[in-house]
């Protein structure tokens, strides 16, 4: 099993979700996050007081899927979250050693 973490632009969430549904992903966890990378932040001005914020709002998606699906999931996210501009985000893939469905106690592949 693989854990796929994607940091994307918030307005791309719906497109990414649809693309993932098409490749057979039935669940995910979504979090609103902030961070910075190559994308520069904005300048805010309040009554003349200027603040440069380098933390940019992003959306973080976590998906656990069978290992053989991981490439298709990564491709789907990469294609659907892409705008071609700096700040589109990143995708990370990690190994997962165990999964349990709390309600039934099913494990691993059956728990996904």
């Amino acid at each position, binding site marked *: 099993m693989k854990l796929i973490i994607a940091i994307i632009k918030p307005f791309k969430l719906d497109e990414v979700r649809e693309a993932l549904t098409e490749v057979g992903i039935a669940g995910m966890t979504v979090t609103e996050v902030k961070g910075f990378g190559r994308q520069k932040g904005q300048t805010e001005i309040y*009554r*003349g007081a200027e603040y440069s914020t380098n933390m940019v709002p992003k959306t973080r998606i976590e998906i656990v899927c069978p290992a053989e699906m991981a490439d298709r999931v990564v491709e789907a996210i990469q294609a659907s979250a892409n705008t071609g501009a700096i700040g589109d985000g990143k995708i990370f893939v990690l190994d997962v050693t165990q999964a349990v469905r709390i309600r039934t106690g099913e494990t691993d592949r059956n728990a996904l």
Partner: protein
Amino acid sequence: MKLTYRLSALPALGFGLFAALPAWAQGAAPTVDKGDTAWMMTATLLVLMMIVPGLALFYGGLVRAKNMLSVMTQIGAVAALAMLVWVAWGYTEAFGDGGNAIVAGFGKAFLAGVTPASTAATFTAGVAIPEYVFVCFQMTFAAITVALVLGSVVERIKFAAVMVFAVVWLTIVYFPIAHMVWASNGLFFKMGALDFAGGTVVHINAGVSALVAALILGRRIGYPTEYMPPHSLTMTGIGTGLLWVGWFGFNAGSALEANGSAALAMINTFVATAAAGLAWMLAERVNGHKGSALGFCSGIVAGLVAVTPAAGNSGPFGAIVLGAVASVICYYAVSVLKPRLGYDDALDAFGVHGIGGMVGAIGTGVVNAAMFGGPANGGKTIGEQVVVQLATVGTTIVWAAIGTTIAVFVAKAVTGLRVSPEVEREGLDLGEHGERAYNG
């Protein structure tokens, strides 16, 4: 029969009315008009709406989320305290019978002698309003003025210090200045100063006091390098709307009657404010920035402040110019002057109310003139009137600065004045009140 038949109840509209005094002073009992009374009760509640929720939301939205409740609590609590102090000794100190040029006599302490039958004079000979209504109307002015001062000291002053400061400040600063401006034997009234609804008493007074208090208290930890954006400009926007609507009670109510003078104050409170809101945004554009929501709100308040002394002492087009000019000057005061001098007037109580109040008070001497479409109250030339306005402004600045220094040091001696650095970092909501504004 003891009627309040002096001009003690009158804002300084002008000497034309003053001259009419002897004709009716010894006359029959005054008429209390139900229309006037109903309007003044309404106006009084409009001013209360400016404080809670208006000012509380306006100021509250501008601070960081961790200090939201402390701001709302400080404003609500000092306003409540001011109401009690007002009926105990404030009313008599400002508007009681007798006294001198600085304070009135103390014969009406604890509202002694005030009954449902007693009346306060208006600007029209022989027309009066119930004295209780006048007491309440002026009570809300005292309450909002002391709350305005807090704009410079939020996010670091102790709640207890605010309460001690309020009692001392009202007693030695607000009540005497209200008397000087609005009572017939008051210093500024006798000089012929024009201050329709309290530009001097409320705004210059609060603004200068706020600056002095902020200087003594010192900057917030992290100012000006740390990120301190307003936590909710939505609430500041709601507060701005409530202030604007409530200000019609403040300005048009200061006519003390439902008449043409109130109508003039009403239209001026519309158009000066509209011009000021747009002028601030234009000033932002001219300086290479985006026209901002906070800029609009700030301009609205600057315009309201500037038109306060001029509300019944200006024509609509004079008011438009006054509002726009005051707004642009306030813009530079908060965005250029404040950073350059380095003081931490957290919510720009001085930059908007102090500076806007001064521009309004001095400008009133100009826009009042007939050649600018004004009603020419007071019968002075522009030059003479401006000199009187300047003298009033200068005296108020000195009085407020000295009185505030005393009040702040009394609060410091009693309470320690400032929260600990830990409380300041954690937020005053938790540290001072044991609550959070936003859970979940």
